[in-house]
């Protein structure tokens, strides 16, 4: 006979994953309308609804000043108004306008330097102390330095975005190029491929999956740095917009802009993932799941 606590533990562990999946039980489900996929989607929606309910509960319980936490419906409405040709859309576009060129510079420079470091061991050796010295410095700490050198403006913002986001591209490129199977290179040499043909047709395609992963990391970092610089220096963009509406007491607009920024970050990540899946079908990342 089991005591109640044992029974409780049993029922708990029944909910844990270590149960063997029981195919027969799921097959015998008579409600064929509720396919597992649909049930899953419903659970996801319910989870989101639950999170929104938590938000409203925090407001209702007076845990914080309710003026600081507007209702979610109001935030959503404000986001829609702001996105449909309002200031929020302009701010998000301005942020993207400095994010994209900064990231592009970082991508080109990162791939070039990473490849050079991986293919020229002497160069790597000679610059190792410099790189190991720069690497642990959080790039945002250099914003005051960039302000000294460039002053306030687009140039400084682009420099900061590029500098901060070059590192993941550089290191993943280096790892990718170093990890190439030596037999590929030997084959290229046997076929008398020129140095540049070997670089562009063997080394780089092989490193592309890792480069793409590094680029995806860099895109998130670039967004953070773009927003930080805007907040600090008041340049046009969503960072300045959020801070500005907060100072002016437009709380609903502030929350709307924060959640819209989250959607932007999500979309950027999704975009890079899609590009990776479509353009790099041989990437090991695409075989994981």
């Amino acid at each position, binding site marked *: 006979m089991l005591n109640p606590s044992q029974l409780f533990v049993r029922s708990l562990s029944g909910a844990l994953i270590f149960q063997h999946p029981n195919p027969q039980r799921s097959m015998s489900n008579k409600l064929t309308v509720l396919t597992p996929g649909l049930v899953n989607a419903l659970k996801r929606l319910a989870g989101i609804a639950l999170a929104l309910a938590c938000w409203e509960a925090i407001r209702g319980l007076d845990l914080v000043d309710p003026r600081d936490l507007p209702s979610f419906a109001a935030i959503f409405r404000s986001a829609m108004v702001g996105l449909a040709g309002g200031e929020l859309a302009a701010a998000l576009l301005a942020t993207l306008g400095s994010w994209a060129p900064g990231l592009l510079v970082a991508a080109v420079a990162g791939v070039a330097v990473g490849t050079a470091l991986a293919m020229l061991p002497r160069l790597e050796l000679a610059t190792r102390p410099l790189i190991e010295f720069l690497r642990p*410095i959080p790039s945002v700490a250099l914003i*005051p330095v960039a302000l000294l050198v460039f002053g306030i403006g687009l140039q400084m913002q682009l420099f900061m975005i590029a500098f901060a986001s070059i590192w993941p591209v550089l290191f993943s490129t280096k790892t990718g190029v170093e990890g190439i199977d030596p037999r590929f290179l030997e084959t290229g040499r046997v076929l008398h491929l020129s140095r540049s043909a070997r670089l562009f047709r063997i080394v780089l395609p092989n490193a592309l999956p890792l480069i793409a992963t590094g680029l995806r990391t860099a895109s*998130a970092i670039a967004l953070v740095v773009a927003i930080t610089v805007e907040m600090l220096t008041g340049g046009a963009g969503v960072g300045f917009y959020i801070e500005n509406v907060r100072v002016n007491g437009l709380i609903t607009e502030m929350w709307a802009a924060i959640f819209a920024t*989250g959607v932007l970050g*999500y979309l950027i990540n999704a975009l890079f993932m899609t590009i990776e899946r479509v353009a790099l079908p041989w990437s090991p990342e695409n075989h994981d799941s």
Partner: protein
Amino acid sequence: MIPNRAHIAPFAWQIGVTAGLLVLWQWVAVMHPAPYLPPLQNIALGYFRLLHGDLFWSAIVPSLYRLAVAFLAAVLLGSLAGIAIGSLRALEPWVRPVFEYLRFIPAVAILPASLLLFGATDKMRIFVIAFGSIFPVLLAAIDGARRVEPMLLDVARVNRLKVPKLLFCVVLPAALPSIFAGVRIALSIALVMMVISELIAADDGLGFYILRNQRLFLTANVYAGVLVIGTIGFGLTFALLSLEKRVLAWHRGWRGLLDPKGA
């Protein structure tokens, strides 16, 4: 073994390049004085002034305190919640979309909201640092807990392990390599958020120190502050890697059988 040319050459290159850069910097600083190129001795002086006396207590200690509290909270909460969610497979579809969205909100964007809710207090800075660094730990812990070998769980069940014991003795160790990978990412994010929160809203800490000195055009102090932040970053990363090496000594990634995906 007698060191020969081949052994010395690499170090000679490294020392040569480093010394060359330093000499170049100093030469330019002396010959063409500019506000953004202070002479090296001033930077060194600023660095040591930060490590001794008043500045240590008004710049380094507050920064480290907030970083430590927020980072430890993020690691603890993230790994506990992650293991719970990863083990309760039924729970995952409920929470995953929300986490997948929240993690893409740049933590800087949260800062003004946090300023509104908590005021310009340590609580607000700790919240922002923790918000930024919890998601890598949480998602890594979920993945780690999900990938426990079914055989281990079967053995645990056969031996009638209680749930808490099972979570701590089987699931947690199995998830640790994944969690450590998340913690490493979280540490670098926590450092970034520490600096940002002090640049934007603080009256002490290293971020405030470098921004104030930049406004006063005391450039050497700005560089000194950046160097101290870099030193902290280097020290913490090193400490974390040593801890990882120790805790995960059993994991094959650390034993020669290098498997880049498993490590």
